[in-house]
């Protein structure tokens, strides 16, 4: 398969590449949002614990 044939996908380029593109996007977005959820929570907790340490330990 030549590179042009690869891009053209036998005339189905729009369909194949939009599907593949959408898939890659969904997979990557899942990874990013999951990782961000963890890091945001860690940051929030860090802030909260520091706050508690500063204002005296919480009950």
């Amino acid at each position, binding site marked *: 398969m030549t590179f042009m044939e690869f891009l*053209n996908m*036998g005339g189905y380029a729009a369909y194949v590449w939009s599907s593949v593109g959408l*898939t890659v996007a969904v997979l990557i977005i899942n990874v990013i949002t999951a990782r961000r959820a963890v890091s945001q929570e860690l940051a929030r907790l860090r802030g909260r*614990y520091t706050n508690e340490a500063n204002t005296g330990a919480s009950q």
Partner: protein
Amino acid sequence: MWTWFHKLSSPPHFYRLSASLIPWFGWLAAALIISSLYGGLVLAPADYQQGDGFRIIYVHVPSAMLSLFIYMFMATAAAIGMIWRMKLAHAVAVACAPIGASITFLALATGSIWGKPMWGTWWAWDARLTSELILLFLYLGYMGLRSAIDDTNRADRASAILALVGVVNVPIVHYSVTWWNSLHQGSTLMKKGGPALPPDMALPLFGMIIGFMCFFGAVALTRVKREVLVREQNSKWVKDMVTSK
């Protein structure tokens, strides 16, 4: 074996285990998906009827299979949480839902894109497509119910019941092509006597399916980590771990 299971239900242990497993699942997923995409988009021969258009199979089928798998996984985790009252099991169920919803959307979208050139339509109200759409609504309903209930314990148990009630839809999606005259093609992979695809087409497909599973493993464990942090935020082990970093 039970000690292993019991250890698993301890949040700090599970957290550490997840942290070590995620990179394995993640890199394995990347390797499998990239190589299988190459195998499917470049190496596999074009289909006799559909030409190169059939290559959408390499993203559509794995996402459809994963959408069902995630739901069953989520429902099982919810059941374990209810029966053995394991908070961690509920955390796993919660983690699965957004992933499942996005993958179901992907299955519907790629299916729709594939349908346009092959069936001549973006959508058809046949049994398989409709029941997969219902699956998406079930995921969204699960997430909606969780966000509507403030108390974590009540939210866990209510959404567990919802997840279990929705399980009836899963066999409907799977067997819809057998039970009804459907526009969607019948079973190709899980037939008696093996898949109906030649090996050079089937191999990348299996690679993609396993790659998607590994992807799910990595992302789900990441989200479970986050759930654990939220649920255990008042415990000593979390405080120690966060402040020591």
